[in-house]
């Protein structure tokens, strides 16, 4: 059962992902609102982020079978860590009874890594705006929408070799801007 779900996360169509998203939501919201005694609205608010974190960790091969727990537990645990980081101050965190916490330890680093990536994403978004088109579109298609060279070259009507060359040129432009802005790495 869980293996099938894992495969759907890994290779599922948009429709399957949407249906998985909906199927885990009620338990997630109940778990978070009970764990933190918080409003269900708050729990619902972090659900898309928790789901996306688990989804990308499965897709990128960071969360691989055999899983120690069910996908629902990973989602809940990711939500727990997100809520913990976002909504609790130090006093509240210290007061939280540790013995009640049933989380998967690896989800903490999953959450931390994605939060770091999102912060860098803000810089990358600004760099993309600065380099403008057509570079922005090429890099977005390749790195965000994960389009292959073959499909992209057909859509953009340019040979694959040209597209590859453009990608490297665009990345070079991004790096030049990073140097100019003295972005701290």
């Amino acid at each position, binding site marked *: 059962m869980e293996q099938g779900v894992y495969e759907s996360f890994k290779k599922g169509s948009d429709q399957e992902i949407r249906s998985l998203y909906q199927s885990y939501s009620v338990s997630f919201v109940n778990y978070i609102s009970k764990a933190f005694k918080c409003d*269900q609205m708050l729990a619902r608010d972090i659900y898309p982020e928790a789901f996306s974190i688990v989804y*990308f960790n499965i897709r990128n091969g960071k969360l691989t079978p055999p899983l120690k727990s069910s996908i629902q537990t990973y989602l809940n645990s990711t939500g727990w860590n997100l809520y913990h980081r976002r909504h609790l101050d130090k006093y509240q965190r210290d007061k939280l009874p540790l013995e009640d916490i049933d989380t998967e330890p690896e989800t903490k680093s999953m959450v931390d890594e994605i939060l*770091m990536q999102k*912060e860098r994403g803000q810089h*990358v978004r*600004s760099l993309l705006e600065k380099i403008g088109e057509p570079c922005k579109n090429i890099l977005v298609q390749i790195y965000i929408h994960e389009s292959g060279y073959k499909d992209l070259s057909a859509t953009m009507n340019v040979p694959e070799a040209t597209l590859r060359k453009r990608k490297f040129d665009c990345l070079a432009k991004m790096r030049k801007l990073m140097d100019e802005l003295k*972005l701290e790495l």
Partner: protein
Amino acid sequence: MNEDQIERIEHFLSGLMTEEESNAFLSELEGDPELKQLYHQHKFLKNGFAGLQVEELEKKLRLDEEPAARPVSIQRSPAYRYLSIAAMAIVLAGISFLLFRPPLMQRLAKRNYDAPFAQIQRSNPPPQDTTYLNAMAAFGSQDWKKAITLFEMVSDTHRLYKRALYYRAHSYVGLNEYEAAHAIFSNPAFTEGQYVYQADWNRVLMRMYLKHPTREIISNLEIIADDSKHFFNERAILLLEKLKKK
């Protein structure tokens, strides 16, 4: 820089190298400062693209979510005789919620505020970075007072001064001291460099926390909403819509 180097970096970052290849690549990095710089830059970009991918999926999921599909929390009691008591309790809870909940502007500020991720990446920091890294560690564990004290000790000649200043402002937000945070986000150091957009956005959020007049907030947000290159352009548009609806 040649294209093969980027491809090798991408292979390494995607975990597609064998252990032997990875080790060889890592030793090469150590001996070639230019390649090392290219590696760090490309890693930064790849991380950023990954962050944007997550954001994109989140946005899609939020848009797809139909109210009917959202989980509901109403639990019906079969004991009708308790119904009136339960209803009364709900009404009272609702009234106290309305009386004691923070004003709209502050709630919206809270929903839109994101504390940055504590950046602790170095394993062998140079001695001049010790205070900065201790401050960052305090920030990471949400020990706001300690973070403020330590970030304050980072000299304005230090290469990470702006970042220290930026995180000091966020530490004040952690303490709900929005006036102090606002003053730091308004520091002239943020008129250029990598924190321009973040400082802009957080200045507006601090004004929302501080209950500045709605007209002023709307006009601040409109400036960001009109600038399509601004990091927070889309969020400003959404926030404006919410504010105008109310």
